[in-house]
């Protein structure tokens, strides 16, 4: 099961650039490996990561197989208003994974 871990500061000052840290469990199978019988293991990666702040996209990453297993991504965003930061990982196979974090901006 794909599990995501996010670290968003609970409180921030208005206008401050806050760091958001994310980690998700996923093998990021490259598609270039073979199993013990010599059969190619099909590619299975997280190809897109998107962060939305109160519905507006603030960060996006297009990922390739060269991203390590259990992708760890950190980025910054300006704390504009209180609300929800929604992080979505889109997979080659399976449903997208979404995590939400609340932030209070003073």
């Amino acid at each position, binding site marked *: 099961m794909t599990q995501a871990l996010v670290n968003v500061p609970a409180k921030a000052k208005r206008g401050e*650039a806050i760091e958001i840290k994310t980690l998700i469990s996923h093998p990021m199978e*490259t598609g270039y*490996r073979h199993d013990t019988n010599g059969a190619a293991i099909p590619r299975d990666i997280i190809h897109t990561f998107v962060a939305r702040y109160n519905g507006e996209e603030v*960060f996006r990453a*297009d990922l390739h197989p*060269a991203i*390590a297993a259990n992708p*760890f991504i950190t980025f910054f965003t300006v704390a504009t208003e209180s609300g929800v930061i929604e992080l979505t990982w889109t997979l080659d196979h399976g449903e997208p994974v979404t995590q939400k974090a609340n932030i209070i901006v003073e």
Partner: protein
Amino acid sequence: MGERGPTESSTRRHFLAAAGAVALAPIFVRPARATPDTMAAAIREVVGEAPVREGKITLELPPLVENGNAVPMTVTVDSPMTAAEHVKRIHVFNEKNPQPNIATFHLGPRAGKAKISTRVRLADSQKVIAIAELSDGSFWSANADMIVTLAACLEESP
């Protein structure tokens, strides 16, 4: 030191001339030119015919890693990140993995700070290049040479 034969000294002269040319090159020549074809093609696809200058962007990678499976990487771009002047995208490429692309990060003025960290896979000792695309349409690059003692597992050579 004994006497050098004419062939040897001319080789040395050529080498020094070439080294000088390489040292001067980064300002005038796109970094794409000095790298393997697939990466050059991938970079050209992103930047088109626009010139890529060195600077403004910092690519942090450890110079030597034991294990290429998860190499910490941080990219920082020197930009005020305002509506008028910000980083639009950061592209990261490599030379020797099966695919030249590592990732593309899309930013905007709402990022506040153009700094991204992640962990990458590297199949061999190689050069990694990061290119920042700014809101004024200019491209800036930084590169890092890596030594990987144990490559990310790939049963197939690229």
